[in-house]
């Protein structure tokens, strides 16, 4: 018994270290993509949501100005840019509905504004991105013109 184990032992001593290294490499190869697949999209999505939220806050401030009785497009855009600049969002724009005459809004007329910013200039520096869209957009913010 002792002799048997003695004759096999050196073989065993060599092989396990080699096989273990291989197993770890395989496991790492399996794990890493999984971790990357879970982490990067999560970072990407939450960062985009954060940018969307900040665009919405800036749009909210802009629409209050636009909705005031003497509100103008210029005043709304000025306020919007003050906020997005403070939030560090690059090249953001205030979007308007095509079918609404913002210069001549009637009292109580419903209208919306939306903030947008290019994704390429506002994304996290990750090696890859899942989004197929080139622009981050806030949701439309609705208001009625005050009288």
């Amino acid at each position, binding site marked *: 018994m002792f002799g048997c184990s003695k004759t096999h032992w050196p073989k*065993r001593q060599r092989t*396990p270290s080699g*096989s*273990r290294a291989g*197993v*770890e490499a395989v*496991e790492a190869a*399996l*794990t890493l993509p*999984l*971790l990357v697949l*879970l*982490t990067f999209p*999560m970072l990407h*999505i*939450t960062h985009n*949501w*954060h940018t*969307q*939220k900040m665009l*919405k*806050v800036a749009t*909210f401030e802009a*629409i*209050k100005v636009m*909705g005031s*009785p003497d509100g103008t497009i210029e005043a709304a855009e000025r306020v919007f840019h003050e906020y997005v600049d403070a939030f560090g969002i690059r090249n953001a724009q205030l979007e308007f509905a095509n079918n609404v005459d913002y210069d001549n809004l009637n*009292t*109580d007329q*419903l209208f*919306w504004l939306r903030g947008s910013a290019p994704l390429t200039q506002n994304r996290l520096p990750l090696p890859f991105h899942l989004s197929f869209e080139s622009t981050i957009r806030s*949701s*439309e*913010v*609705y*208001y*009625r013109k*005050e*009288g």
Partner: protein
Amino acid sequence: MPASKKQLRLVRHGASAILIMAMIVPLIIISFFALSLANLERNEVATQVSSDLAAMWGANAISREVSLVTIEDRARALALDNWQHGSITSTGKKLDTNQAEVQIEFGTTRFFNHIADFTPGDLPVNSIRVGTEVPSGIIVFGQPLRALLVNGKATVANVERDICLVVDRSGSMTFDLTTDWWHQSKEWHPENKMANSSDPYLQDRCNQWWWAWPHPENSRWSDMMPAIYALAAEIPNTQQHELFSIVSYSSAVTEYRYDHSLVRRQFTTTSSSVESQPSYNYLEAVQKLDNKYKFEFPIMGGTNIAAGIDLGAQVLLGNSSRPYAFKTMILMTDGQYNVGREPWLAARDAAEQGIEVFTITFSNGAEIDAMVLTAKEGRGKHFHAATGEELRSIFIEIANTPPGVFVE
């Protein structure tokens, strides 16, 4: 019996794989949780924006006296529009508006020393509260679970304001603004009828006529009046409805003066008097003041500023004013108080009753430090005007305060 090294090695084979398999589920759950948390926060912003905008528009509509039924319908629709477009599922799908609950309450907000207190259901209605409650949180197949609800609540009140303008009618208001003295000679006064009288007695006394009557162009009074007219014209442009009253002050004196009919009469002034009770006829109130001191009553006496503040406070707190409105006193003086108690003590008393006291010094002879202190004690602000045009700008600035405040 302890396991041999061989057995241990056999057990270790695939241990990492099992660990990964065991950890992958919690990892996915954590990722899922992180995303849901981010979505929760985003929906909180969406609901707050929905409530804020609906309440803001609602308060504006209240000030325009739109019917409460219409306001309720439109404010609810506005909150739902914003929520539907703002609360986004993980798939970007817009949610069903039936999932959101929008509660709207009308009531009265009362202001006291800059503290707002909203009472739902109270009259008169000057405020609206909008509460939006939506499901959010853990996302399951693109839909948030209803178990987690996000609340956004906003109350916006219209700042109704009762303004009392307290003007100085002491003798120095007939001074010329630049020389601080009665500058005009009898020939310069276009309304000096005595100078042109055929009666030698009256001609001899022609200087006495303009003694207590402000020159229509070259007097502090005549410089002040256009600014007060501008204030009256500006008030209707503000979004709130303001009750406007005028109080004047000098000191209690009795003197003989020639009136506009060239009759020598005895005129008695009181320390302070109500020129116009609180009303919405701003221009009429100013015209009444203008006509009285141009044609009917001379401007004379000392400067009892405290008497003006005390009477102004009485008017603002009287039955003709509104208990839920902001109380603003605009105190104007061209000089130094020389009768009565210290004006800052009167301003402190007014402030303790919820009145903010703005002070304006007009002319370079005014005691600015005392009026700065009076404004400070009155929880207001001090302004100085060297010219009638500057006074006009100050009045307009005071009139244009924000129409609404967020109560919560």
